[in-house]
């Protein structure tokens, strides 16, 4: 198990390398550069700027330098946010983004799994069917529709939570963003759990457990839940990717100073190191979550050989 985990972690390195390489070259293929402004700079200033950031070197040299700095954990200077390094910018925004994202993912699984299990157990009931129809709605509604609507209803018409003008440390600002992010994931998790649970409930070992007179909750919790969770766990990786995507929207809707805006604004500004840094940080998160999902998979289902 340990050897397998280590091997998988080492296996992340080539994928990350491909990610960095692809991102590095694709973003430089884009027309326009970081110092193109409406008012053109004089050639001398332009040349100095390019030299200062190493942009006058051939691409291969720039790439080599970037990789070298990266190995030392240095993501480089930001081109647009003068006097800030990318490390500082990301360190400033990431904690907030992470808090929202993790809270949303946790909430989604904590709500989605019980709802799905309940719907599978009461498959025939009208309430369960209604719940599953609602969950389709939850899956389909995009964050950039839910977010503004929630802000409108619970922030303005019926001001329960605070919206806009974020003050650090006041969790009241974070409730609606977390709900917005969690909703589609929770709905999807509920559907997944319902589907796999109703399959597991038809199996022989469940029938045996019920036949020997175990209470319903014992059958569900001790026998059926673990195998039923397998497809749910494999959704963990995509769910994190989804939450990251959603956090871009949610931070913009609720005006939160997370790190999501750096990705979009950096891409528009051609702030190469900033975009690269964001892609790298978020890429590592996605890959690590996929890895965790794979490891959990083996724990849940011993038949999955970890070779």
């Amino acid at each position: 198990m340990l050897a397998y985990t280590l091997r998988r972690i080492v296996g992340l390195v080539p994928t990350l390398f491909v990610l960095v390489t692809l991102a590095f070259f694709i973003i430089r293929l884009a027309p326009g550069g970081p110092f193109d402004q409406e008012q053109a700079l004089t050639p001398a200033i332009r040349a100095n700027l390019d030299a200062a950031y190493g942009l006058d070197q051939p691409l291969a040299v720039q790439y080599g330098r970037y990789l070298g700095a990266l190995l030392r954990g240095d993501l480089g200077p930001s081109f647009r946010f003068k006097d800030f390094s990318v490390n500082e910018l990301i360190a400033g925004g990431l904690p907030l983004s992470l808090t929202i994202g993790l809270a949303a993912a946790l909430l989604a699984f904590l709500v989605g799994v019980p709802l799905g299990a309940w719907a599978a157990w009461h498959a025939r009931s009208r309430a369960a069917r209604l719940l599953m129809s609602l969950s389709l709605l939850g899956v389909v509604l995009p964050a950039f529709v839910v977010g503004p609507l929630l802000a409108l209803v619970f922030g303005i018409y019926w001001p329960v939570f605070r919206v806009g003008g974020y003050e650090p440390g006041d969790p009241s600002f974070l409730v609606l963003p977390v709900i917005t992010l969690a909703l589609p994931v929770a709905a999807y998790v509920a559907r997944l759990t319902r589907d796999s649970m109703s399959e597991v409930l038809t199996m022989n070992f469940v029938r045996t457990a019920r036949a020997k007179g175990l209470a319903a909750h014992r059958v569900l919790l001790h026998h059926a839940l673990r195998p039923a969770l397998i497809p749910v766990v494999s959704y963990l990786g995509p769910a994190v990717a989804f939450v990251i995507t959603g956090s871009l929207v949610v931070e913009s809707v609720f005006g939160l100073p997370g790190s999501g805006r750096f990705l979009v604004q950096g891409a528009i500004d051609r702030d190469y190191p900033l975009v690269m840094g964001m892609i790298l940080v978020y890429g590592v998160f996605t890959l690590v979550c996929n890895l965790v999902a794979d490891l959990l998979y083996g724990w849940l289902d011993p038949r999955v050989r970890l070779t």
Partner: protein
Amino acid sequence: MTLRMSLGMRVALIVLASLTTLALVAPWLSPWTPDALDWENLATPPQWAHAHWLGTDRLGRDLFVRGMQGLRISLTLGLLATLVSVCIGVTWGAVAGYAGGRLDAAMMRFVDIVYALPYVFIVIILSTMLPRGSLAALFIAIGAVGWLTMARIVRGQTLSLRQREFVTAAIACGVRTPAIIWRHIVPNVATTVIAYATLTIPQVILFESFLSFLGLGVQEPIASLGSLINEGAQEMETSPWMLLVPAALLVTVLIALSVLGDTLREKRAHD
């Protein structure tokens, strides 16, 4: 697959058909054009007078006309990008699955690596690369990364189809490999591909709206549902209809397409 349709599927089809028709004939229904400014009616709620059926935005542009333009763009993009991803995905998957061996391993390894890369970032990078606001560029960017799942599904099916007698028979008859893939493998994966493609269309529409919401997609003066929602969200305190109109349009289309896709997929699973 039988032609008997469930109630949900029928409703979804009717909703989609009527919305598509409405989007197509909208330019002839309303006296307004998407970029016409009505200075007399800035930010007015829905009303019959002046033919602003769904209200106007801050610049006095008619929301019905703009919403329908957005719907046309969403549907066109959804169809085109799905078509691109189906073409690449089916070819890639069928070739890999049929060839097997090293070629298969290499091709699927490539898919795995691209799969591990965060999808959004690739599209964001690609969309900044291409000229801003160019629709063709946008759908290439979305379609070019949307084919991965399709390739996996098709490869899986091809692996088992390759072992079937009719393929052996075709080989024995001396049919060339491209012809076997095209005439014997591809038609057999068509139903799965169609079911999955129906689910891809709403994903593409969602993605386009997402990019437009972030300001990376369709650019002014052209409206997309995503950019309309973005504009509406900024005005929602004073004029909620600017948010509600495009949001309702987008959600209706997405739900109808998802219901359709889900039903098709479940039918496949039962067959």
